[in-house]
Structure formats: structure tokens, C-alpha cells
């Protein structure tokens, strides 16, 4: 069993939305108490719809924003209270790749300067010659040509810019790369090129990735383990095989059934969720999903569910799987029975 590279405990990230001197403070609870671990060398995927807090979670792990509460333990080191000076040496270990390849590169810097900057800041090259060599090596690593170094971001397509973004993250030789929707702005044919590049680099350098995306097929393709988020919390966490073959949480089930399948001969039954994601300012009590859940019970409105283990490396936050509560256990069993019936029929 590989050891944990990253451990997150009770992480909360609240954004204040109003509140003057006299007013009561109101917060958007973007991330509302999240625990998870990422093992060395694995790809941990985080999926969820817009507003579920997945990007905020990525940013707080990298400490691009100060977490409100909770612990972030990287390689045995608690980094949540580090100031920007202390973070500098951590940044060598954790790098981020962003969604928008048009906005994340400085338009006034040449590609050479963009890639040289982290090398200089972290003192990773002695002189100009070594910088030049390293920049060229980085470009080749991501499948670009040497002469691209002297060009500017506007001269490149979206896919190429994303390659540059990845090269910049590689420059400092990180252990963990947090990629926030790295392919969602790209066309499908380019998207697969970038995904393949990321897999190749991972194999070569044994990186650990946190891969954040809304596209379930993409996350399934690249990840080893996946966490599904809804309104600032994880609802299910499992290896990708378990999650896709046997989704347990009603939200995961609905999410998977909503993905359109590129095969017209497959007609599948959809679970269509009613309504919209509630506001994160005033989330529902109890289980946050209960307002849209097709299997909502009384207890769901009152109490937030705990984390239940339902299989090998498979966790779900749902009252349906509470074995100790007789009322609830009955409900879970009823559902199982119905499933069995349906299968027989």
C-alpha cells in the first residue's frame, strides 16, 4: 500500500458575501468539511457540477486561498497555516494547471520567459545556458518544438497553450499536480491529445494528480480513485471501477445516468433530477442532496449522513447505508429487493 502524499481533514472554505460593521456576516460555504487522502502516484479525480466547490477545493489545497478551517497535510507536513514565504518551498512540490489556457499565460511574456520564471524563482538553474537547456527540454517533454520558445501565447492554439501550462507546472519538478478542468476548454480531438500527454508524463515521472473536472467520462478515463462532490461535500468516494459499475449514492447514480452515450443503439433509462442545485449560502439542512433526492427519507431532512464504508475502498455519505438504524436499514433493503425484482423481470 502506497503512503499518503496528501491528507485533508475537515477542510472548510467559506467566502464572505456581505456583512458590514453591524450586519450579521453571511458566508458562501463553498467547501464545507471535506476529508480525503491522496496516495503517492495515484490520480484522484474530483467530479461535480458547477458550484459544488471542486475548484475551490483545488485552490485551497494549493493554498492559493487561505482555508477557513481544517488541516492540509502534505508529505507529513501541516501546511494550512504557512505564510507565503514558507509556502515557497512547498510550491516546488505542488503545482497547478488551470482551466482557461487563454487566461493563465501572461500575454506579454514569451514562452521561454514563462517557462524560465519558475526555474529562476526556485533557483533551479545556475546560469542562462542551463535555463535555456531546461526550457527546451520542457518544451520537448510536452510535444512542442524548440523554436516555439521565442513565440508569445497569442500565437498558439488552445491545446498548445494547455501544453505550455503543463510544461510550466513541470518546470519545478513537483510531486503533486492539481489540474483544474485542464481539458474542458478544448475540442474533443485536442482534448484526447492533452489527456494522453498527462498520462504519459505521469508514467514517466510517477506524479500524483488531483484531476478536477465536470465531465464524468474524462475523469473516469484518467483517474484511479474518484470523489463525487455536491454542494461543498463529498457524497461518494471509490475506485473508478466501483464507482462506475456500482454507484451507491443517489446523486452519483443520477449523474452517471445523465451522461449522453455516443451510441444511438443504446437506449438507457435516465434518472432525471428535479430542480436545481440549491444555494451554497443557505444549503438545505440534513443531507444537502435531500431536496432533489428520489429516495429521500425523513431522517435525511434532519441529520447529515456520516461516512459509510460499503465495499473495498468504497465510501458513501448516505443514510440508506446506515446498517445500525433499523428504520433506514429497512429502506435500503427495500431498494435492494426492488433492484433484484427488476433484474428477474
Amino acid at each position, binding site marked *: 500500500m502506497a503512503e499518503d502524499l496528501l491528507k485533508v481533514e475537515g477542510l472548510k472554505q467559506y467566502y464572505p458575501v456581505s456583512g458590514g460593521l453591524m450586519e450579521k456576516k453571511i458566508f458562501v460555504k463553498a467547501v464545507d468539511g471535506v476529508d480525503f487522502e491522496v496516495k503517492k502516484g495515484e490520480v484522484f479525480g474530483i467530479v461535480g457540477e458547477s458550484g459544488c466547490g471542486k475548484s475551490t477545493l483545488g485552490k485551497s489545497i494549493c493554498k492559493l486561498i487561505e482555508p477557513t478551517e481544517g488541516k492540509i497535510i502534505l508529505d507529513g507536513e501541516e501546511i494550512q497555516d504557512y505564510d507565503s514565504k514558507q509556502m515557497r518551498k512547498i510550491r516546488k512540490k505542488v503545482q497547478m494547471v488551470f482551466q482557461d489556457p487563454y487566461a493563465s499565460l501572461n500575454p506579454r511574456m514569451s514562452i521561454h520567459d514563462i517557462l524560465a520564471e519558475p526555474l529562476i524563482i526556485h533557483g533551479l538553474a545556475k546560469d542562462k545556458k542551463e535555463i535555456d537547456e531546461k526550457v527546451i527540454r520542457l518544451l520537448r517533454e510536452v510535444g512542442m518544438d524548440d523554436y516555439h520558445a521565442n513565440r508569445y501565447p497569442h500565437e498558439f492554439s488552445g491545446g498548445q497553450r494547455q501544453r505550455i501550462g503543463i510544461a510550466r507546472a513541470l518546470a519545478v519538478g513537483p510531486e503533486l499536480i492539481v489540474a483544474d478542468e485542464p481539458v474542458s476548454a478544448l475540442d474533443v480531438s485536442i482534448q*484526447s491529445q492533452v489527456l494522453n500527454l498527462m498520462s504519459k508524463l505521469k508514467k514517466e515521472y510517477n506524479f500524483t494528480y488531483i484531476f478536477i473536472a465536470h465531465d464524468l467520462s474524462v475523469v473516469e478515463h484518467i483517474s484511479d480513485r474518484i470523489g463525487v462532490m455536491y454542494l461543498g461535500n463529498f457524497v461518494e468516494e471509490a475506485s473508478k471501477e466501483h464507482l462506475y459499475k456500482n454507484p451507491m449514492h443517489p446523486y452519483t447514480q443520477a449523474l452517471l445516468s445523465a451522461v*449522453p452515450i455516443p451510441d444511438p443503439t443504446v437506449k438507457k433509462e435516465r434518472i432525471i433530477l428535479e430542480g436545481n442545485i440549491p444555494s451554497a449560502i443557505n444549503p438545505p439542512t440534513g443531507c444537502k442532496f435531500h431536496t432533489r433526492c428520489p429516495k429521500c427519507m425523513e431522517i435525511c431532512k434532519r441529520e447529515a449522513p456520516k461516512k459509510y464504508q460499503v465495499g473495498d475502498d468504497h465510501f458513501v455519505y448516505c443514510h440508506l447505508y446506515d446498517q445500525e438504524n433499523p428504520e433506514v436499514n429497512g429502506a435500503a433493503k427495500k431498494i435492494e429487493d426492488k433492484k433484484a425484482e427488476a433484474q428477474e423481470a
Partner: protein
Amino acid sequence: MDTRKNILEIKNMHTYFFTDNGVVKSVDGVDIELKEGSTLGIVGESGSGKSVTALSVMGLLMGTTGKVVEGEILLEGQDITKLSDEERRKIRGNKISMIFQEPMTSLNPVMKIGDQIVEAIRMHQDKSKEEARAMTIEILKKTGLPRVERLVDEYPFQLSGGQRQRVMIAMALVCNPKILIADEPTTALDVTIQAQIIDLMNHLKKEIGTSIIFITHDLGVVAETCDEVVVMYCGRVVEKGNVYDIFGKTAHPYTEGLLNSIPKLGEHVEELASIPGNVPNPKYMPKGCKFAPRCPYATARCEEEEPGFFDLGNGHQSRCWRCEK
């Protein structure tokens, strides 16, 4: 064989943009037929000309440097490219309407939702304000929006993205158009909301009998909604046919590449197939087949000579030398 008649026929349409840096041939000879009561999907990546095709049909290119320079657009047999701006306006929103990708920016932010739909009705039909308002409430209810009576007096910012897209659909359908053009209507939405909207569009199509042109880059959405599919690349149609032939008997290497590039749920592969390279710059188009530089099967002939359409039966056509018999 499908015997339904064509409600819309685009014949050899060329739409060029005249920019300071030269002519950009966004759409360069496109033939598309839409059958009555069916859904046609137009698939392609950015820059393939799918949105410009839609805007050309709508007549929404004024104010840009773009122009339909050649070809015909036949709406129920009548060529609408010859009509005056005034006559085009009467068709737009009445016989053909369109919904856009960005539900956030395609509604007027300072006008109440109900008033925006009433305006669309009164533009085309001789209705009193009260009648139009009643029609508005009725169509909004059909889209499954909640508390419609109050919602008509609210502003767009008070709605979520999915709700705004429902309002757009209501506005597009209120005059019972013959054709609805939907340009990436679900791209900006979350998957669970996308499922709701696709469901709604399929339902309304049956109820109102509108023919739909569905423009998207998402092949999953195409497989679930469309009867016919047109695949575009670099301003041309490269393959067309019914949805089963396109997905089951894929003939063009570009369509094949697209289908193989998408990761599929429940299928584990080490490496995804991908199409090497990028879409060519419109200023430096390859001489022969436009896909040849990225095509794994390209031969010397492909680089020299551009193929025409080859018929594969059942209306399935592909623009590739490999389909020549």
C-alpha cells in the same frame, strides 16, 4: 427510405468573411437537407463552420463582414437568400427561430421575462397584450418552469442557467416555428440540467412538430437526440447520413477520429486515440482534402485532389477517396 419532404434545403452555400487580412471562407460549399419533423445534428469542432451555417440560414450576418456569396437556402421551396431584410425579419422568429449557447447573454437583462416573449409574439402575430400574455404563460408552463405566473414578471438574473435556457426555448417556440435551430443549447449547462433540457426538447418536438437543427460538438448528445447527422470540417460537410449509419458504419476518417477521441463511460483504455495536429488556419488551407494533413490514411492523391461525395446508400455520403468504389 425516409419519404418525408425536405422543409429546408441548403444548396452549395458559401459564406465568406471579408476581413482586413483577406477573405476567410468559413463555409465553403455546403449542402444540407432537413426533413419535416426530424432532428438534424451538425457536428464539428470549433472553426468548422457549423455556427456560421446556422447564422447564414437565420440571416443574422448583417453587422459582420460575413456574406452568403453563393448558393441557395430553400425554405419550403422558396429561396430566402433573395429576400429583402424586411422579409427576412418576418421569417425570423416566426418560421425559423434559434436558441443560443449562452442563456446568460441572449436574454435582455433589463426587460422582464414575460415582456420579452410578448414582444416576440406581437412582432409576428396580431394579438392584444392580454392574449399575448396568456400565450406566454401557456408556453412557459409547457417548458416545465415552476411558478410561471410570478416568473413572467421577473428579470433574467433571478433565474438559473437551466431556467434561462427554458425561457429561450419558450420564446423560440411560441410562434410555432417550422424550424428550430439550437446552437450548442446545452454546452453551458451541467449534465443533470443538460438531461432535463434534452428531455424537454424531445418532448416539445413531438408535441409541436417542429423540425430541429441541433448544432453541437458533443457526440453523445447527437446520438441521443438526432435522426440525421452532418459532420463538418473546415467549412465543408465531410460525412452525412442517418444517426445509425454515422455511428455504426462510420466512413470518413475525421468522424472516426472524433468518435475514438472521446473517453467512453465504463470502457477502460490505456491510451485514447487522438487526431494529431490542429485544425488548419483558414488562411493556409491545404490544397487537396482539407483533412489530409491530420489523416492516418492520407495518400499522395489526397494531398493533390479534393474528393467529392461518394454515395454509400441509404442517404449515407462521405467525402473521402477511400469510399470510391
